[in-house]
């Protein structure tokens, strides 16, 4: 794991996204702060509805129109504030500086265009060139993501490709413009384990080659443990814990993180009863005081129900933050 020590590539501070619905408004992204350095992989972990994907989309400023908007915070890419860019400027950033790999390879490729057309479209937008060059570069990109016989595949329609192949094409689109950051939103969920392993290895290799930063959004602790350098754990729109992978797996500070890790079946070792987290996450639009995890927390006391816990430095070195009253007490 190479980890560069220079200034963060991407720095997010106190980011907040508001969603307005008829039933009321709420914050799926609520005061996020995190950073990614080049060559670094940040994992954003959380269960359904925790706001992971919303975080990803807010980074490229592609939230659903009308319904959602960024209300506060700052997103700096290489020191440039993304939130103050015009839409046209932002469009130049997308694809070329920040790329994205979406969840479902079945649906994230346009069925009406060939793989090559879809790759070269991104290329043309950010570094135009003649058609033949674009094609050659598209084939190059496919070769980079280890697609066999790229000069044939380039003319295939998505329907003619297997799931793993499609996800590679999506990857090729993402890396084609050599972005600084790739946001990968659960890119392997629908893939077989073997294909998943190949794909993740590919991402790591590409990262080592280019030094790009990766933000990996997932609910799979296996991926987090194997791929990421740092983790952000989300619960109900908030970051409840963040830090390096080693620390969090070794000494989870937040009861939620701890329970989650305990709930994952392991490949080796003791096969006892798995830990469970009883109850359901709160309803977003209903008023809430205190820690949102309190109703499901085994260790919650009165204060947890009434006051929102502050974010505290769990290990005292600024590398491991958690938002829990119990951490403060320790």
């Amino acid at each position, binding site marked *: 794991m190479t980890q560069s020590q220079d200034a963060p590539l991407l720095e997010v501070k106190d980011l907040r996204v508001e969603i307005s619905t*008829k039933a009321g408004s709420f914050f799926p992204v609520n005061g996020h702060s995190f950073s990614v350095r080049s060559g670094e992989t940040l994992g954003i972990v959380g269960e359904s509805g925790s706001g992971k994907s919303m975080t990803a989309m807010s980074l490229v400023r592609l939230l659903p129109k009308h319904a959602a908007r960024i209300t506060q915070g700052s997103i700096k890419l290489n020191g440039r504030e993304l939130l103050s860019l015009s839409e046209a400027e932002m469009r130049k950033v997308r694809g070329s500086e920040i790329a994205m790999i979406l969840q479902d390879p079945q649906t994230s490729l346009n069925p009406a265009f060939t793989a090559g057309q879809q790759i070269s479209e991104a290329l043309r937008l950010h570094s135009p060139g003649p058609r033949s060059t674009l094609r050659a570069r598209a084939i190059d990109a496919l070769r980079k993501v280890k697609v066999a016989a790229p000069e044939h595949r380039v003319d295939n329609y998505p329907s003619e490709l297997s799931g793993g192949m499609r996800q590679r094409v999506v990857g090729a689109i993402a890396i084609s413009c050599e972005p600084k950051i790739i946001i990968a939103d659960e890119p392997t969920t629908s893939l077989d384990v073997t294909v998943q392993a190949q794909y993740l290895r590919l991402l790591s290799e590409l990262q080592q080659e280019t030094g790009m930063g990766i933000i990996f959004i997932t609910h799979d602790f296996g991926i987090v443990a194997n791929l990421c350098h740092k983790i952000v754990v989300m619960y109900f729109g908030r970051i409840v814990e963040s830090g390096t992978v080693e620390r969090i797996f070794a000494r989870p500070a937040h009861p939620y993180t701890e329970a989650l890790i305990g709930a994952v079946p392991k490949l080796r070792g003791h096969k006892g009863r798995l830990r469970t987290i009883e109850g359901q996450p709160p309803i977003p639009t209903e008023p809430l005081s205190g820690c949102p995890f309190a109703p499901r927390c085994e260790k919650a006391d009165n204060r947890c129900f009434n006051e929102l816990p502050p974010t505290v430095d769990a290990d005292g070195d600024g590398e491991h933050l958690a938002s829990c009253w119990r951490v403060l007490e320790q």
Partner: protein
Amino acid sequence: MAETSPNAPIAPTFWSKASDLPLIPIGLLLIVFIIPAFFAQWIAPHDPYVPNLGARLQPPVFFGGTWEYALGTDRLGRDILSRILHGAWYVLAVSMIGIAVGVVVGTTLGLVAGYARGWFDGLVMRLVDISLALPAMLLALALAAAIGASFLSVVVVVGFALWAYFARQVRAEVLLLRNSDFVARSQVAGASHVRILFRHILPNVTNTVVVLATLQVGIAIMLDASLSFLGIGIPRPTPTWGLLVSDGRDFIATDWWISFFPGLAILLTVMSANMLGDWLRERLDPRQRQI
């Protein structure tokens, strides 16, 4: 992982449901269509059939007429308002029975065709093609010429014109449903084909059918109007809206109110039914795409 499943509408609370009700179309439908259909004989100010030759071609109130004939009178001095109110019942009957015929025939055939597949499916789809290939208007003309125009012939034509749409749509849905996990689960449980069709698949196509039926109200009323235009609608003196518009069409430029107000009634009803259909569609089945 599916963060939200398309099959899972968020359980609406009572108030979100109520405030969401499309009050305008429902209100319009009630005022223009439903209430007149059932209560015309009490609320209509005049007899819709009896000519009053002394009051021919009275303009509507505010256009030189009086409140006595608020929407004016026709060539025989009959009150337009009363005729519209009384006509509502027939329009309701034709569209409802016609659509019911279409729904029953179309849904049954679509259901069985989609579930059984094979030759029966092929046959039904060919019938659908045939039905769509025969312009309803021509069929109506031929039918009317053959057996005479009557309430029955209009209903038959409306039903014939509509069933294929239901059959097509229902079949398409059934094709998806029959491969769904819950149908597989019922098969595992040992449910018979009949049980699977009627307990499991049918309830899941009712949304589609309801939405489609609402949207077909417009087509049914339009068809009725066109048949009246060709002189093969429900026979006189029944004041169906189609007949009223059709009868007044010669006077659009001069005594415009004769056809304008029945036309407006058609417009408001069809529009409301469509709006209601749209609302139901968004409500019941966001994925359905049908005209």
